[in-house]
């Protein structure tokens, strides 16, 4: 059974109290984008064997969306973090690296994005 700790309220909830929201950190391509980008935004999803980042909603609880890092094979949870983060936090990365030394992030850190300045 999957249990995740909601970073918004601190409750450790089991899977049936949560609602899955698919891959985390998608970038939206809307009006004005190319057909290719729009198609990829709608349909192309990672399906890794191993470390993965997902959206979850604490549906039978505080109701907030949050993000989780876990392993799709072992179901090991590396951590959860707030949905306002444009990328997994340094703590999450460290927690993954501790268990999976060979794992490499597939994003490049940008200094400050507008999402980071959002208030919660």
């Amino acid at each position, binding site marked *: 059974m999957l249990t995740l700790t909601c970073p918004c309220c601190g409750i450790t909830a089991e899977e*049936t109290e949560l609602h899955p929201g698919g891959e985390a950190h998608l970038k939206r391509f809307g009006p004005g984008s190319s057909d290719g980008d729009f198609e990829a935004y709608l349909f192309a999803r990672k399906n890794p064997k191993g470390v993965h980042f997902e959206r979850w909603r604490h549906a039978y*609880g505080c109701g907030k969306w949050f993000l989780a890092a876990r392993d799709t094979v072992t179901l090991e949870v590396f951590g959860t973090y707030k949905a306002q983060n444009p990328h997994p936090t340094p703590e999450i990365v460290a927690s993954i690296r501790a268990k999976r030394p060979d794992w490499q992030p597939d994003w490049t850190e940008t200094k400050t994005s507008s999402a980071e300045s959002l208030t919660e």
Partner: protein
Amino acid sequence: MAEALARITKLTDLGMIQIRADLAAAGDAIAAACGVAIPAATAMVAKAPRRLCWMSPDELLLVLPLAEVPEAVVALTAALEGQHALVLDVSDMRSAFGIEGAKAEQVLMKLCPADLAKMPADGMRRTRAAQVACGVWRQGDGFVLIGFRSVSDYLLGLLNGAAQAGTQLDPR
């Protein structure tokens, strides 16, 4: 003939006011208007006959006698004037049940995927009872469970079923 695990009663005098606001900015105003301090996350503050429950980072639920609801709505609305906030009388869309007795916890253990044994005396746990959303807090020698009125009959059936005599979880 064994006894039921708990006494299940429908509580009909509970008024409920939903408050949504930026709790960091509006906390003091809300506390003053309610006459109850702002609870910590996943907790509640009881000050008889009122109870202020933490529902989410931007939501509180004031539980109070039904007769006090109109006045409290006016006070809260005035206190939050000019802020991005919501004060709503939700008494009619909620149902509440008392689950009392030494084995009250077992009734909820059958229905909720939450470790209610570890919930502190001032805890407020939102979870589910079988297939519907609910909230639970401790009261007296048992619990109060709140849910949506539209599933009130379902909840009452669940609770009575889970409390049936002879269905205790302890080894026989």
